[in-house]
């Protein structure tokens, strides 16, 4: 759990670096996100006059919710300590709870930007969340379980083979992952043009330690989503779930493979973001609608025939 937390800003830094290199800039150092966090933590918080207690507690709760969700996602080893606390649906719901609080925090100050961010975030979520759930249903029907560890273990054995529904789920998952993490073409994480912001608009009024918590939660969520994708669709090289005894060598190997997979996914993300432009807000539902339909199609195929 702690490792995930430590690795999260590194991944963010890596994606930024890749983007910078592709744009022929040198880019900030890989550990810049850590420096940003330290700087933010040391500062005095400035809180708007009419902010309520919700505004001040929300960053901590959002961070905690994301962290708890992250602790249920297998990274480099199967057999997590807490994986039986909840299944994939619980993970999605925990992320949904974090988003719910963030949208409320955006509305708390009563500014136009907070409202626009919250409103658009909920619009995006209203399509991304069902798409995500349909992907879960597809996976659960294939693996006969909604437990992420069980699904990953089942797919690792290769018993599922190549299936149309899995391919549909992968495409849908990739779209949803972009939307969930506020990446291009849905939202621009680097924007400072007010009217194009979604996530940034909601956290506009935050400063210092509160902002640090939110930034950390966002990095953590990116890591979590990518880990989820690689755990489900590319589960090879994971250290098996040792009962009691932890095999250090296997864990180290799994950790290396996981790091490699993350780096590959991060590079892909950076390349994709460089290649594509931000969409108009009202074209996003079309994109997410595709994800939802693909998810539903995958489920329908499985209901009709076990083999597809």
């Amino acid at each position, binding site marked *: 759990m702690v490792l995930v937390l430590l690795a999260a800003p590194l991944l963010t830094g890596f994606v930024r670096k890749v983007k910078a290199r592709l744009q022929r800039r040198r880019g900030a150092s890989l550990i810049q996100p850590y420096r940003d966090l330290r700087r933010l933590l040391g500062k005095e918080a400035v809180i708007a006059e009419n902010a309520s207690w919700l505004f001040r507690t929300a960053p901590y709760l959002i961070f905690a919710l994301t962290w*708890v969700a992250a602790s249920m996602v297998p990274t480099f080893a199967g057999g997590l300590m807490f994986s039986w606390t909840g299944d994939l649906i619980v993970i999605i719901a925990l992320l*949904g709870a974090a988003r719910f609080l963030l949208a409320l925090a955006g509305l708390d100050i009563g500014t136009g930007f907070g409202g626009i961010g919250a409103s658009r975030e909920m619009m995006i979520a209203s399509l991304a969340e069902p798409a995500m759930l349909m992907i879960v249903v597809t996976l659960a029907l294939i693996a006969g379980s909604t437990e992420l560890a069980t699904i990953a273990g089942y797919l690792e054995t290769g018993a599922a083979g190549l299936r149309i529904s899995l391919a549909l789920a992968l495409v849908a998952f990739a779209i949803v992952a972009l939307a969930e993490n506020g990446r291009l073409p849905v939202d621009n994480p680097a924007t400072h043009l007010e009217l194009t912001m979604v996530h940034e608009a909601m956290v*506009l009024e935050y400063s210092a330690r509160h902002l640090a*918590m939110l930034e950390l939660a966002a990095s953590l969520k990116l890591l979590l989503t990518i880990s989820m994708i690689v755990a489900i669709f590319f589960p090879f090289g994971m250290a098996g779930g040792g009962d009691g005894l932890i095999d250090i060598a296997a864990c180290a190997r799994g950790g290396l493979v996981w790091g490699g997979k993350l780096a590959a996914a991060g590079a892909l993300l950076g390349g994709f973001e460089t290649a594509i432009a931000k969409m108009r807000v009202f074209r996003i539902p079309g994109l997410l609608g595709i994800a939802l339909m693909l998810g*539903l199609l995958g489920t329908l195929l499985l209901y009709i025939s076990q083999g597809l």
Partner: protein
Amino acid sequence: MIAVLAGVLALLALGGVGMSRSRRASGIVYGVSLLLSSALGLVGLHALLAAGPETVALPLGLPWVGAHFRLDALAGFFLLIINLGGAAVSLYAIGHGRHEHDKARVLPFYPWFLAALDLVVIADDAFTFLFAWELMSLVSWALVLAHHRAPGTLRAGYVYLVMASLSGLVLLLAFGLLAGANGGYAFALMRTTRPTPGIAGLALMLALIGTGAKAGLVPLHVWLPLAHPAAPSHVSALMSGVMTKVAVYAFVRIAFDLLGPPPAWSAVIVLLLGGASACLGILYALMESDLKRLLAYSTVENVGIVFIGVGLAMAFQASGFALGAALALTAALFHVFNHAIIKTLLFCGAGAVLSATGERDMDRLGGLIHRLPQTSVAMLIACAAIAALPPLNGFVSEWLTFQAILLRPALPQWGLKLMIPADGALLALAAALTAACFVKLFGIAFLGRPRSDAAREAHELDRFSRAAMLGLAAISLLVGIFPGVLVDVLAPVMREMFGARLAAQTPLPWLSLIPVAASRSSYNGLLVFLFIAFSTAATILAIHRVTSRSARRAPAWDCGFPDASAITQYSGASFAQPLRRVFAATLFGARETVTLPPPGDMAPARIEKALPDPIWDRLYAPFERLIGRLADFLNPLQFLTIRRYLVFVFLALVSLLLALALSQ
């Protein structure tokens, strides 16, 4: 059993006290209602856990039939829900009811309403059932009309009365079909006789219409958003939180108990209506800016979710999969319980806002979290719970419903194979839209800056109301943390209905919830709650210990353009605008027109939105027009001379005789 009847009689008698003009009548009526409801709720819980059903027959009602009452596990569970809601609302009303200006229009009917709700679930023959059902409708109609001078109330009462009569009439026909030609009106007789599949299917559809009209299934939901907001707030809480549940009870009783295993096609229809209600209900709610109307539409959504669970149970039962049926019905009844708690709390909160500010329009509220601190904590919990966020109770029932969808047994029918995954998507969509809707409710009404003087000067409520709301919020959290307890409490109902039950949940380590198998799915509310609480506390402590904890208050930054005027904030309508454009433009035909004045003209720019209601326009309005035209056409018949009336009588006699002669 006797205790329940005594309680019902006492409630009926309490209505008499309510008629007195004494100043203390309000406190007495609500206080005694609180005690009686608590007692009845305990009786319900006892019946749920007790061994077998108890029956009583009284020589009342129809000759040769009498009045039968029966208290089994299902009735006990609903008795528990009704009286839990009733007790909380009575406690709330001890404080809130004092603000009522015309007490004599509410006090006599309130205990009668509670009594009628209780009577419906213990009735064991068609006559007693329908009598209690109609009593429930009529008394609640009287309560809807309590504020009869408010604009719109009379129309609400009229629409409600029409829909309630439709529901009563259709249920009468359904029971007629079930009773058969020999007139077996007692439920005990209906259980033993098995009608032919055609009759059973017809009776089931009639029962669906009759109970759906009461519960608010789309397209029979039109009266809910009119009538629920028109009533005094604590009555709205009962109508939305409890009365719709009684309708669900009636459907479950008829579909699973009185009729045999349902045909598979009927499950498709129930699933379709459930999915449609879930999605359309929450979309209507999103477009609404009136607090109580929004909550009424959200009730439509939740009833839809319950009926999805019920439909799944029917589908599984039709394919002979008892364990799946038990899981689906457990999910549905769990959601019934959750929604009863949450919606009662939400309506109490809306009532608190209404009495603190006099406003129901959320675009004139804002910033209430500062003025009503305790109410807003309760409302925040309720909003999170109804948006199905862990670790609260709303999440558990939706999670269970998903687990039921994921079971995927060998289904006999193509309709079901397509409908069940589609319902999964609709359920997911409804859940996400609910989150948006309740972010809107809480964010606009309770957060931000006050948009009117009334909201700026609101005052926290009396301690009874606050105690009721915080108590309900605590129940919501507790059930979310210990869901296994409620699942186990529901086990006798499942055994009664399907002869199968889910594995016992309470002995599992760490109070996990494992509906089917540990490798399949598990959820542990307690651990999720502990993890969240622990990590939040640890983070706050660590951050405050290690780094700076200084904070300074300053004006909002707002990208450098803060505007002092509160109307520059996002309003409810602007919050919902993206969703309106995405969903409502195609579904409801919502339109927006922007009028910009030409350059140089100082006139204001305008944006106009039109949000038609296609269900009312296409389904009800033509019917209304037809009735109106028919009435106009027949109107002259009122003013005829006696000779003409005699001619009519004579002609009627001749034609009847002719018909008789020709048919023999």
